């Protein structure tokens, strides 16, 4: 009687043992986004529970994606997103979402009032006017920096669709980038740098998780408020990707563990990232709705165009506006012109005149009447520009389009020329004189025409410079100006 019982107990014990055999300890190498350095205590738990140790090498998401596409020795990649990898047209490795964090602005509480519920346009306008100075990571390296560029550019294009190459031919990023007080290689470095410079700047562009962690770290003299740009969130979902198929068993164990409620809670509590598991109850601050995500561009060319714009940031820029002030402009037309300048100076948004920009106004009728140059350094200069045309007189001595343009070319330097006219040339240089004088026009030239202006020759000149004629006849002058703002 005793023996069978013992046997049964023994069998039961063996069986019980079977179900909890600890798998072999394994080490996997991981190419990880640099902000994942904050996961170390979670990874210690992972090792304790599964026997799998993850050895993380850190790199910015954009650069890491390039490396993965070219081929790396790592077993896994754990990046803020696999979108940059998808753009490289490689077969996407098996991929499991692990946690979420949106790109946001962490804005000093004192400044946040004005930006609560802000759109990217509000942020860009404020930055252009010198009212918002922030740090952001280098978009050539870091996913957070690139996401910010995509957010701003997509909102600026304003189509409600993913950015296409033709949407980024004109650079609408410069207003936003005017506010960039410092850069840094990656998402971690930009936060460290912010801590150092917190008395000089207003904000940092980074992930929600980084802002919340920074507030909790006790390193800030003034806490940061999270601003979710309401016209387009870029959400990171941290896919864990299997690069070496022979490591699948360990990878599966890691994914399973990371997706368990315990791990999801640990990630949320220790790194302020949003759990993907709907059953894990979120902390108060992570329940904040994040708005709609913008559509992500579908081609590498768009990303490259944004990077080129980023590289131009801070270049001194000069725009010469050549403005017809002949009497035919009287009434609605001159009013529209004045309104356009007031709007570009005061109304914010992506097309606002920005700090660092030199705006030259050349008023002409039969001759050049006035040349006025404003270097924008702050609010006072913008105010000056807003009113610069308010009391300008119209003249009756004709319309000398080519002479005025000739004048502009002499002062343009490496800037751009924007000519606005409503009439035919009837004074000064003829088109032929002009073309003979400037066989290779020195500056990209845009012409905005309204009314009866004959664009044939204007169009010829503009196209020769890479510019074009925009017809303000159908819409408002302001829209026409906005259409070419940022075009170079």
């Amino acid at each position, binding site marked *: 009687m005793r023996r069978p019982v013992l046997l049964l107990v023994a069998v039961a014990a063996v069986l019980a043992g079977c179900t909890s055999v600890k798998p072999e300890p394994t080490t996997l190498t991981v190419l990880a986004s640099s902000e994942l350095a904050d996961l170390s205590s979670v990874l210690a738990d992972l090792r304790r529970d599964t026997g799998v140790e993850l050895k993380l090498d850190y790199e910015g998401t954009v650069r890491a994606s390039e490396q993965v596409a070219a081929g790396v020795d790592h077993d896994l990649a754990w990046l803020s997103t696999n979108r940059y990898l998808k753009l490289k047209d490689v077969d996407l490795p098996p991929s499991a979402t692990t946690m979420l964090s949106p790109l946001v602005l962490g804005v000093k509480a004192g400044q946040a009032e004005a930006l609560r519920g802000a759109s990217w346009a509000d942020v860009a306008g404020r930055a252009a006017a010198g009212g918002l100075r922030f740090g952001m990571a280098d978009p050539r390296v870091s996913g957070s920096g690139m996401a910010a560029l995509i957010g701003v550019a997509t909102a600026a294009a304003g189509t*409600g669709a993913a950015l296409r190459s033709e949407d980024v031919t004109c650079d609408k990023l410069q207003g936003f980038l005017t506010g960039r007080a410092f850069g840094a290689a990656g998402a971690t470095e930009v936060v460290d740098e912010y801590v150092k410079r917190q008395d000089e700047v207003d904000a940092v562009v980074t992930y929600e998780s980084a802002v919340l962690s920074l507030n909790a770290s006790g390193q800030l003299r003034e806490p940061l408020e999270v601003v979710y740009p309401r016209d387009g969130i870029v959400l990171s979902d941290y896919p864990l990707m299997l690069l070496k198929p022979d490591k699948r068993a360990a990878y599966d164990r890691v994914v399973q563990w990371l997706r368990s409620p315990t791990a999801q809670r640990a990630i949320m509590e220790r790194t302020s990232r949003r759990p993907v598991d709907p059953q894990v109850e979120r902390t108060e601050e992570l329940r904040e709705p994040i708005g709609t995500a913008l559509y992500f561009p579908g081609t590498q060319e768009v990303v490259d165009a944004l990077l080129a714009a980023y590289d131009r940031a801070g270049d001194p820029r000069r725009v010469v506006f050549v403005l017809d002030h002949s009497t035919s402009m009287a009434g609605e037309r001159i009013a529209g012109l004045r309104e356009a300048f007031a709007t570009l100076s005061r109304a914010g948004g992506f097309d606002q005149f920005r700090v660092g920009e030199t705006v030259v106004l050349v008023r002409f009728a039969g001759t050049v009447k006035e040349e006025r140059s404003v270097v924008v350094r702050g609010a006072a200069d913008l105010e000056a520009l807003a009113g610069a045309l308010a009391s300008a007189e119209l003249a009756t001595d004709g319309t000398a389009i080519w002479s005025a343009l000739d004048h502009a070319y002499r002062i343009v330097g490496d800037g751009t020329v924007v000519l606005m006219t409503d009439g035919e040339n009837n004074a000064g240089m003829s088109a032929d004189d002009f073309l003979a004088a400037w066989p290779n026009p020195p500056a990209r030239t845009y012409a905005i025409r309204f009314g009866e202006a004959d664009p044939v020759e204007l169009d010829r000149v503009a196209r020769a410079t890479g510019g074009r004629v925009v017809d303000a006849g159908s819409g408002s002058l302001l829209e026409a100006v906005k259409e070419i703002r940022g075009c170079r």
Partner: protein
Amino acid sequence: MVAKSSTEEPSFTILDPPKSAFRRKRFLLPFGISAGIALAGAIALFASGTVALPFKQVTVVSAMMASKSVYFQDSEVRRILMANGIDVRVSDSGGSREIARDRQERVREFDFVMPSGQAAAELIRDRFGGRVYFPFASPLVLGAFREYAEALEAEGVAKGQEGGLYYTLDMVEFVKLSLPEGGGAAKTWNKLKQPVDNRNQIVAQSPNPCDSYSGSAWLGLVAFAANGSVAPNEQNALEVARRVKPVFEIEGLHGSGIGTTFFYPDGRSSAPVGVMYEHQYMAHQFDTVARTGKPDSERVLLYPDTHHRTEPWLIAFSPAGERVGDLIRNNADLRRRALELGFRLDNQDSTALPDLLAARGLPEPAPSLTEGFLPKPPDLETMIREVGRCPEIRVPI
């Protein structure tokens, strides 16, 4: 034996043998309890079939698939298969059409593959052969957050069904929102009669038609709608593809399917309206009802008025794969579990899913009876190549 003598013989006192340790009360009670528990556990394990495992040959079966991996990763399905001596290890293919593309010539190394729908499955069978099983089906639908569905209803593009969770979507009108007649940009959600606070253009987000079955089938349905409710043919496939291409460019970079992200707490941000399979939604609702006692009323389904029923095929390349095919087709427990995961069974059991929905207190959807015909495979390929930026599929089609 000698009688007693005068001198007292040294006598042995025979002590009772010490009580066996096993009979001591102090031992018996705890032992009895633990033995009882062990016994109960052993019986339970036996009943579940687990006890026999160490003594049974377990065959590890390798498989590759995309969204249908939810089935083989389900713990109940794994347990039933295990009880039948089978442990399925699933590799993620990304999308079903990536199985057909197979740049590394590795498909036949798997015991079986399970593409999410018939059109992709045919490509795979044509290229790699294999034995085909038809385990279950699921309609192609759009998942939507409620305010988006209601906005479409106010616009006259969708019509609510009874029960509050499902809508019938007018495909022709819906496609017109993304692709206005007479050109121009698509309408944005905040410009509808009943606006949603979202400045994005209206489109159902879908995975890349190059890679995924649902993406390619959705392209087929959009083309059907844009072509006067006729499937494009050899003559006009390219022309229709060019016409509907802008619909697929709105989203830019396609995601990997919203079958899981849609149900995340931030699902509304990732994709408020997107292409998915009915089973993904139903599994979520069964789960929600089991947890909370009531359905998730924030997420709804839009059933296109031109119906496409997706049929995942199990294509077996080895006897082990065929064994899984036989089980999944005939094992009653596996079929019951497929239902609980939201799949529809074949015509023999055509009311099984509606019955289960009713039993769980969920309304029954009314998918359209009108089929949305996909173009013939070569024409669909032509369209996919035009719309997506796809690597070639090296398959004789």
